[in-house]
């Protein structure tokens, strides 16, 4: 069970992409089934309604007979199972087996709500909201705005309950013609609003983090100070010969004074945190993203001191080379790397000056010899 949930992404790839899945049988025919509809959640995934008592109204197959049963909804809001859809609509548009409306295979959508009337209402409302997106600012007074809202509700109601569909569609088309520019503008406004909201959320989160950090710092400081005070008392008791109770009382008073001094500081540091926040925001802007630099270190690997040849006369690796198509090759062992390593270690010590204060003349002479070779 856990394996199947973990591997879900493997099986529901298409569902994540199109908001709908196509079963193995559908993909095998190379027909990418594109569904529109279904209700997406925040992450853009379609949640699908299914129950144990699902039964295809067309072929009467149920979840007992076919555990993979998946019911999809047509544009006339009738359910049927995927295999019925495949069977009926693969060869082209056909009449709905329930109401006779001409349907296409592509136009079936997954079901989100148990009640299909809800499903339909959501679909209609979404469609209407896309075009009827005027805002309060677009109207001169509240009265005309309310009239507009009522009209929208009227149209929605008509579409949901299929009253005067033709006339309603004409009204929608007329509205679209009249307000094309405004609709476009409002879509852009909406996008900007969403973006602004996200930015604000981010700012607030940063601020909260900053505050928490500040609080932690203060707590830490206080703790250190307390410990210091304690130590001081002990030291004083040790060194002075005044009475112990006097000394302790004096230290307590000092500590209280210090704490009082810190209080306004705490309030101040909150505001300073904000100032610093702006500062960090500023510095974040300053920390510019720079183009990628492949290698940033300066570690010198002596690459210029040798040239790696394609082939060496190397009796040690005879066995490895003989096994050209065998396990060593398949495992990815690279003989070149071994050769390169041997070469590099060989040239590594070249050109290194002997240590200045090396007393033994012998080692200096050896180093000199090596240098001559290099």
């Amino acid at each position, binding site marked *: 069970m856990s*394996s199947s949930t*973990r*591997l879900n*992404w*493997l099986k529901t*790839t*298409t569902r*994540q*992409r199109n908001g709908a899945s196509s079963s193995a049988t559908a993909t095998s025919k190379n027909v990418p089934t594109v569904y529109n509809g279904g209700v997406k959640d925040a992450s853009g995934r379609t949640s699908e309604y299914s129950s144990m008592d699902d039964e295809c109204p067309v072929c009467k197959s149920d979840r007992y007979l076919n555990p993979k049963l998946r019911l999809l909804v047509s544009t006339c809001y009738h359910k049927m199972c995927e295999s019925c859809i495949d069977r009926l609509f693969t060869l082209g548009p056909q009449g709905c087996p329930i109401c006779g409306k001409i349907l296409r295979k592509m136009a079936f959508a997954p079901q989100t709500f148990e009640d299909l009337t809800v499903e339909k209402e959501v679909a209609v409302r979404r469609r209407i909201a896309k075009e009827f997106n005027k805002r309060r600012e677009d109207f001169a007074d509240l009265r005309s705005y309310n009239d507009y809202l009522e009209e929208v509700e009227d149209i929605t109601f008509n579409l949901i309950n299929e009253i005067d569909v033709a006339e309603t569609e004409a009204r929608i088309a007329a509205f679209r013609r009249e307000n094309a520019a405004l609709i476009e503008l409002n879509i852009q406004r909406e996008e900007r609003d969403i973006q602004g909201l996200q930015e604000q959320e981010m700012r607030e*989160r940063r601020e909260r*983090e900053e505050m928490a950090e500040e609080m932690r710092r203060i707590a830490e400081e206080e703790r250190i100070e307390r410990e210091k005070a304690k130590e001081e008392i002990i030291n004083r008791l040790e060194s002075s010969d005044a009475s112990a109770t006097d000394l302790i009382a004096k230290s307590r008073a000092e500590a209280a004074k210090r704490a009082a001094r810190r209080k306004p500081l705490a309030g101040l540091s909150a505001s300073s945190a904000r100032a610093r926040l702006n500062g960090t925001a500023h510095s*974040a802007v300053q*920390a*510019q*993203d*720079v*183009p*990628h630099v*492949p*290698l*940033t*270190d300066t*570690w010198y*690997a002596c690459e210029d001191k040798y040239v790696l040849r394609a082939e060496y006369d*190397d009796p*040690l*690796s005879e*066995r*490895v080379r003989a096994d050209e*198509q*065998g*396990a*060593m*090759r*398949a*495992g*990815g*062992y*690279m*003989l070149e*790397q*071994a050769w390169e*390593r041997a070469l590099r270690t060989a040239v590594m010590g070249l050109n290194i000056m002997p240590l200045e204060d090396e007393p033994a003349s012998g080692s200096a002479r050896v180093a000199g010899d090596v240098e001559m070779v290099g």
Partner: protein
Amino acid sequence: MDAAERENHAAMKRWSKDAKIGEGTYAVVYRGRQSSTGRQVAIKKIKVGQFKDGLDMSAVREVKYLRELKHPNVIELLDVFSSKQNLNLVLEFLESDLEAVIKDRSNVFKPADIKSWMAMTLRGLEFCHRNFVLHRDLKPNNLLIAADGQLKIADFGLARDFADPGHKMTCQVITRWYRPPELLFGCRFYSTAVDIWSVGCIFAELMLRVPYLAGESDMDQLKTIFRALGTPTEQEWPGHTSLPHYVVVGNFPKSPLQFLFTAASADAIDLLSKFLIYEPRRRISAKDALYHPYMFSLPYPTHPSKLPKASAPMQPRPVHIEETEGQGAALSAKATKRKASEDPFENSKPVSRRLEF
């Protein structure tokens, strides 16, 4: 007191130990400070006493390779000293790891962020490979993030230098989800390409926000890989059928990566597909990947200081989860979930614990 002891004592004096931040089967990690400057460090205390045959291999490896590698994208080993029965490694202190950043749902990754992390990972890895070191345990959990946003490769407990021709290496390395198919097929002769596969998996994980190839067992891992990328043919990967543990794992068709990575640019898909080439010798090298057009294309990689960070403080991470018989129960829940590389129980064939060098 001889010179070595004096040296060790001086090193011990340089660092002070603080609170414990993590524990693994073979080490405990403490927060620490440099006594002179107050610089924060992490001190990894390796328990020596409990191992019958001396020091644990991963500790040796870690010291051996980190001592040689100094790079902005590789964790820095500042000092090594011993105290009583323990070996202490002083490492750079790093705030969080890439896994925590990926898991933090409040983060939104921009393509530029992913590019920046990939570039840093590849730079660190290229440096290791240039120094002839295979990391062999790359995963988001081992890519640590510094306070300034720099990504650093850590945990060299499974690293080793390139093998000499004809020398066998163990195939029980790399955490399963990031393990390349040649290791799953039990190949004992491999190269830098194994790390590149892991980088590909990490790249995909950065885009998907969930582990890309999450298999439940070694067998299932192969199946998961093939289901995602198609079963390799003899033409695509010559000779793979002759690998020691070769098994037939179903025949899965290939589907374009674009289907899953819908938001990725064409360049990104191209680079990902080159990371995940079946034949190891054709898989892109770290250096070539750094010169891939994806890296140079717009948007420019995000400046490290602006990258998203994990908001929650880092969970105490298991330092190194190497399962040894009877110790499995002691592991934390997280440790068992992201199981590390060596797992003798899972394999069809019992594998001896000896690691050959």
